């Protein structure tokens, strides 16, 4: 069984001191170690953003894909390598901006994979512009008068799109986040964990203290994670805005919804009985198919 440190490479993370990405990095390595996942048994796909820079720091088989396109790249892999597991690590700008269409379609597809989204509610790598999850009216370099759009609600959108596992984590609580990861990684279907991870450099609103004053754990609140409707109502009612006080604005973390037993996309593919590269070990005999065209 691997130790968490075995997933480190020779490179040290370059995220800003205090960045929420560190907590997510630690939690994922811990979850992989706890589950005993061998490095040859899974592949990781990243989009482009501060989260994606993590590609260099995990000693795994991975694919640092295009901005917003980690999900389809991972889907191509997951649908052809039934012998391996697939993890996607995305960002809010990346996955909920360009990637929003892929996000919804991946959910309704229920492809078996785990999608972890670094949600810092800002564009970090490109110096602080508004992201799709930036709070309404927040001022950023690209929205000096404030964001005029409502933020994307990833948990609600996922539930509405047929998600079979939806959780929200907070990078400031590594132990709790590790628990969410271990559950998600074992889910048979598409598992989403949207993780609030404060950007200490560009997001001066949604900071570590801001979250610490507001987060509470769903499993301690009596929430029934098998009730999609309850999960949906919770995702709407607790969708915070920038003016709310810690008393008014509570941010639940934990598993919103989990449903086991729904067929995955892979379950519908009877031909997915081996790694698909095995079909290219020799030419396929198509003589009969050619004859049929006579």
């Amino acid at each position, binding site marked *: 069984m691997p130790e968490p440190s075995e997933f480190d*490479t020779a*490179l040290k993370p*370059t995220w800003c001191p205090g960045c929420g990405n560190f907590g997510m990095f630690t939690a994922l390595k811990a979850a992989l170690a706890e589950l005993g996942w061998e*490095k*040859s*048994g899974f*592949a990781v*796909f990243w989009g*482009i953003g501060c989260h994606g*820079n993590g*590609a*260099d720091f995990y*000693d*795994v*088989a*991975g*694919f*640092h*894909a*295009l901005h917003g*396109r980690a999900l*389809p*790249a*991972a*889907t*191509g*892999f*997951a*649908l*052809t*390598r039934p*012998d*391996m597991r697939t993890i996607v690590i995305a960002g809010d700008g990346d996955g909920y901006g360009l990637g929003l*269409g*892929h996000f919804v*379609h991946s959910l309704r597809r229920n492809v078996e994979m785990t999608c972890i989204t670094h949600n810092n509610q800002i564009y970090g790598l490109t110096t602080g512009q508004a992201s799709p999850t930036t709070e309404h009216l927040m001022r950023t370099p690209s929205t000096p008068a404030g964001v005029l759009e409502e933020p994307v609600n990833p948990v609600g959108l996922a539930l509405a799109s047929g998600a079979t596992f939806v959780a929200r984590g907070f990078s400031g609580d590594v132990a709790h986040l590790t628990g969410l990861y271990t559950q998600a990684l074992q889910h048979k279907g598409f598992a989403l964990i949207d993780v609030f991870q404060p950007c200490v450099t560009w997001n001066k609103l949604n900071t570590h203290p801001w979250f610490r004053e507001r987060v509470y754990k769903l499993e301690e609140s009596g929430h029934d994670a098998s009730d999609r409707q309850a999960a949906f109502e919770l995702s709407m009612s607790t969708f915070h805005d920038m003016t709310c006080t810690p008393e008014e604005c509570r941010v639940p973390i934990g598993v919103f919804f989990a449903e086991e037993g729904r067929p995955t996309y892979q379950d519908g*593919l*009877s*031909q*997915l*009985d081996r*790694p*698909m*590269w*095995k*079909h*290219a*070990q*020799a*030419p*396929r*005999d*198509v*003589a009969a*198919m*050619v*004859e049929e*065209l*006579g």
Partner: protein
Amino acid sequence: MQHAAFGTSAEVRIRLGGPAGFGIKAAGQTLARSFVRAGLSTFDLTEYPSLIKGGHNTYHLRVSPDELFSHVEPTDVLVALDRATVDLHLAELTDGAALVYDPATVDVSDLAPEGLCLVAVPFDDIVKEAGGAKIMRNVAALGAVLGHMDFPIEHLAESLRAQFAHKEPQVAEQNVAVATGGWEHARRNACEFPHTLAPIEGAPKRILVDGNEAVGLGALAAGIGFYAAYPMTPASSLLHFMATRAEKAGVIVKHPEDEIAAMNMVVGAAFGGTRAMCATSGGGFSLMVEALGLAGASESAVVVGLFTRPGPATGLPTWTEQSDLRFAIHAAQGEFPRVVLAPGDRADAFELTWRAFNLADVLQTPVILLGDTYLSDNRQSVTPFDTASVQVERGELQVEGDVEGYLRYKVTESGISPRVLPGVEGAQQIVNSYEHDERGWGSLGEDASTRAAQNEKRMRKLELARTIVPPARRYGPQEAEVSVICFGTTKQPVREAMRKLAAEGLAVNMLQVVTVWPFPADEVAAFLRGAKRTVCIEGNLTGQLQGLVREQCLMDVDESLRRFDGRPFSPEQVEMKLRGVAGRA
């Protein structure tokens, strides 16, 4: 000066025309299949607007005892399911041609039947008598065409029985009865049909295939494991072809949310070692471009079909053009090696597709199959593809076992870095869209010398490509009065024109640029140097191939012929140009 028509007197050209939704293409293909079963050669051309119902659809079928290279312009038998068909195509009718129609629905009382045989057949009554559905009027028309030609009915009957084999037996028999009704009715006609086309007993077997089917078979033969595509004319039928064979053949076929997803899925599947492909037309390819660059940067073995229709933007969805040559060669930011292959006919399409997968694997870079609507949509009878010649070459690829200290992007002399699949013990790697070092790490790719080394390493693969890509093909005699250079499907009408002119004493040869990138500058230059008068023929406005000749060979051709109205070149148009170039107009 009036020149002789194409083909021998045995050759017959049939056009079916009517409103969209009348099953014109399906009926035409049934007729084509009947002729192929009778040992004859066929070439068809479907023309239709981008509509489901209404609008004018036609299907033109050329049938001959001889091998056919392309369609031709004239028509000997015109089947008119509406009056518009008569008006649109009357001018193309040859001397002694027949007009087959139902007098109950098409009024031709104003036509002077001089040199024209009016074959009035009550399609609807024949269908009613057999108790069939109205759509079966097509089948009555097919029977009537054969009856007028004095061609036996049994091949059509066989073809219909095969077509409806999966339905209740009475469906097939009803169709056969309707066809026979049309056949018998037309045989009562008094006109003499000036062509004598007869079945050829014991003719070698031929298959009837369009370009998309040929590409699909090539991909299947190559061991494809993943095909993703978003519907777009003219590539959509390839998606259907793959989807219907997916489960049995063992291929994952995905129709995703858009072409961006399709191309990214293909790159992800290729990362897992699966032979993966997508295909689209120019609009979809535009959306794929960023991921095409990703395949170049990450050194992913992918095959992309770009089947051109007239652009820009939505353009003319159902028509043809060769205007994406430069787009295929230059698409995506930055510089990376790629191979672009341009099949000219269906046999090319099969062979170049399986070869494309080998090239992609050996070179670890994207290979583009550049086709067009003329290839995708139209069927030609051809010798069954040589499936025994297919080879699978996966290049430097380790799929199992273990490895230590693996460097995905190791700098080598050939530019090829050995691939080790995820899943192999020790094969930790980052396949990266960022510039990267040998390990795949993006953060170290910013080092100036590392960037230069990786950039040069990748581009060295283009030099390797030059030694293994399919060469240009020469047709015609070594010595010729006129030498043609072309790419893609323009080859077909050019070959047809060359054959006719050769028989009339005008020698023409042709160089088909098969691999359009890397451009075969030496072969093209040698061809042009050995030529008397040269002409570049291509289906675009700006002369994209001619521009490449100038740029890559520092030479030019004497003349050019371009077409950009959405229609393919006809051999008649090519013939006229070649006569002009030779000074023998």
